[in-house]
């Protein structure tokens, strides 16, 4: 019996993303043929341009870092039964706070002090933005999807205003360079990575994934969080204060998305720039979905989507890189459609037999 239960769960988790990738592959083929290229050649180019050379691989690592953070943010919230669509705003707030912290600190502050402060600022800012929908839901019953969507626009407009009116370097849309707290690039240690933006925040993101996994599946907090997500009434009955769990989950989720901001500000450009996220906040939803809300799955999915997005640049000579955006949409749509379908197939219909 145990093996059947376990196998069911594995099938339910793995089948939808696989189906979705297959569908995306077909749509990709159609688009490539439409442009008049050979799918085989394009996919080969995509692979060689990403995993096939050090620079491409470095860029994949760089892009995966942000997606890992935003994906974890969405996954953790979903485990608590919450849909965090506010990744975009939380990510921007985190990046901004880290950049400002690095700007405020005196030049020459040692990294051992400055880096934790900057990371802390990113976590706090993301967490603060995340707290809003959490509190709104727990206290006033406001639907978190609506609140997070609207909050994205508000946070981005607010940051735009601060940067545009107070903090920008003339003629640009970005803040001045940080004086302290920057992270080292991977190319500083492994020279073939030269030119790629990959930096040590990747390690921080992976550590975050490990911590989230441990928290979710090995601690009391995780037990209560998942119970609140699966069946809030049962969790409440089991002594869990569901409202508090929602707030906590949203704060942690926002903080994780905010953490993604350090990849750009601390690790790459060393300043905050309007629109740096490039949609990574929204793509976090895709990453969590394909990763089936499991930290390990999220890591894999982050690499998958990073490969797609870097691969788009690699194939641009043959096929417009916009094809990748289409494929991302197709993957999300297909996973979303396949999840209930697969569950029905695997579990069989459980309808009102007992009623």
């Amino acid at each position, binding site marked *: *019996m*145990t093996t059947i*239960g*376990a196998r069911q769960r594995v099938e339910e988790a793995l089948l939808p993303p696989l189906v979705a990738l297959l569908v995306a592959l077909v749509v990709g083929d159609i688009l490539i043929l439409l442009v008049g290229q050979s799918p085989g050649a394009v996919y080969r180019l995509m692979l060689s341009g990403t995993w096939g050379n050090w620079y491409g691989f470095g860029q994949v690592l760089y892009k995966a870092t942000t997606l890992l953070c935003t994906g974890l943010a969405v996954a953790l919230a979903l485990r608590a039964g919450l849909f965090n669509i506010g990744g975009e705003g939380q990510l921007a707030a985190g990046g901004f706070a880290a950049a400002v912290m690095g700007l405020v600190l005196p030049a020459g502050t040692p990294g051992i002090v400055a880096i934790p402060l900057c990371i802390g600022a990113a976590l706090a800012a993301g967490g603060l933005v995340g707290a809003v929908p959490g509190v709104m839901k727990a206290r006033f019953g406001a639907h978190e999807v609506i609140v997070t969507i609207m909050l994205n626009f508000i946070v981005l407009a607010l940051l735009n205003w601060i940067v545009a009116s107070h903090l920008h370097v003339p003629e640009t849309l970005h803040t001045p360079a940080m004086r302290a707290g920057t992270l080292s690039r991977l190319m500083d240690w492994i020279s073939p990575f030269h030119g790629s933006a990959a930096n040590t925040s990747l390690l921080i993101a992976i550590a975050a994934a490990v911590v989230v996994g441990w928290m979710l599946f*090995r*601690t*009391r*907090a995780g*037990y*209560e969080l*998942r*119970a609140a997500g*699966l*069946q809030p*009434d*049962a*969790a*409440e*009955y*089991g*002594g869990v*204060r569901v409202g508090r769990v929602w707030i906590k989950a949203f704060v942690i989720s926002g903080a994780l998305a905010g953490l993604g901001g350090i990849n750009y500000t601390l690790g790459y450009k060393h300043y905050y720039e309007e629109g740096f996220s490039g949609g990574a906040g929204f793509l976090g939803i895709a990453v969590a979905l394909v990763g089936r809300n499991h930290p390990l799955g999220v890591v894999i999915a982050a690499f998958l989507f990073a490969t797609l997005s870097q691969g788009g640049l690699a194939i641009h000579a043959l096929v417009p890189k916009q094809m990748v955006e289409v494929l991302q949409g197709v993957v999300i749509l297909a996973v979303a459609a396949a999840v209930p379908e697969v569950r029905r197939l695997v*579990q*069989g*219909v*459980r*309808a*009102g*037999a*007992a*009623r």
Partner: protein
Amino acid sequence: MTASAPAIRMNGIHKAFGPVHANRGARLQVGTREIHALVGENGAGKSTLMRILAGLYAPDAGTVEVGTPSGELRDVTGWSTADAIKAGVGMVHQHFMLVRTLTVAENVVLGREPVRGAMLDIARAISDVKRIGDQYGLRVDPARHVGDLSVGEAQRVEILKTLFRGARILILDEPTAVLSPLEVKELWSVLRRLRDDGATIVLITHKLDEVMDVSDAITVMRQGETVARMDTGAATPEAIARAMVGRDVALVTMRKEDEGPRNSLEGTPRSAAPRFALSVNSLVVTSRGRRAVDGISFDVAAGEILGIAGVEGNGQTELIEAIAGLCPVTSGTIALGGRDVTHASVRERTEAGLAHIPEDRHRRGLVLEYTVAENLILGDQHHYATGARRAWALDGRRIEANATDEIQRFDIRPPDAELPARALSGGNQQKVVIAREMGGAYEVLLASQPTRGVDVGAIEFIHAQLRAAREAGKAILLVSAELSEILALADRVAVMYGGRIIATLPRREASEERLGPLMTGATDTTRPAA
């Protein structure tokens, strides 16, 4: 058998939902102008069979035939709801199928709207509803919003819906579960009027007194099969009950005879100085702007079962949830073992010795996707955690040991701690809840509908557990919609009506005859017999 041609004939009906076989070759034959009772225990497959007749499900195998106005049978196997409605088959569901935000008239005409040009002719809808209502004594204002109606009125709307569609065959699924005895009487007269007007009525129920009261013929189902068909005139409750459960022994548990609990208590606490384990004082609970619990006071002593009888929806749910800490108290106090817990958290109450078997295990009692082992620590999870303030890692080995132990003690099947709770049968799911709540240390137990939707074997097991807990000196507050269960277990019986306790009787003075009127809110005029 009725002499007239059959109105419904169903044969060899099979229907499975995944691994669950709801119908296994079920049969049903109903004559025209007949009130036919379809009886059986919970889960016997009655509702499924009727949903197939109403076109909501297609059968996996078997045939469904329905009489035409010309008196012939027509094969309608696998028809749709729309077809069924068109042919005059209407179903009143156990859980009302009403759109709360629409008016009575809008609910009634939905799907068959009268139109004037492209517009909805709401004036005609209102007059039609009024006319049909007057004809059968189903009075309810067509312009009111359904969300504002009482339960009895809502049921009238359900019946109006089927009549508006010209139903000749009317199916009612457990129609009395939410009605007071007076409303039940009214319903019976409506049904008789309909029958005398030429309608055929199938009544799903598991209450034998209703069967004897109103039906002309009876079909009994057990475990998805049809096991008996009889004319009501020739049937006895005992015979029906035997057919329902398949053996004699269960009849005693189902139908309390007067040998209820025999112990030293009979309403008086065991020790000289009464020590009340649970004390509720002038409790008021407001729910959706209504005083659902309206000033209730009672005590439960150690070693006593206090049974709360009453028609569902008279504040029992809110009372239990307030004591359990799941809904806020408006005023009044709750004390556990002398300690005030009126505003304590659920966890604080658990630590003060409270255990709770909730009325709805699928919603409250279990996290269905969690494994049996995980469910067996729900509410107790901090005891399995380590670190400061028990916030950190869960001890997997202790969780496993606990599961192994309780699975064995409470005979949970299959004995697999790693199975998700949803994969268990209703009875075994309830055993998981019981094992968790009664397997550890506690002083006061709230048992709300503890045997709802479980099989007879599990009922006996659960009743034995509750009796043993009383002998072990636990204080138990039992809420049950089954009067027989209350009478079989309780030492004292309190009757709840309209959010109040309107009478409290020692077991020896409580009888179905005396409790019945009380449950309708009638003042107690019967003096104790002895």
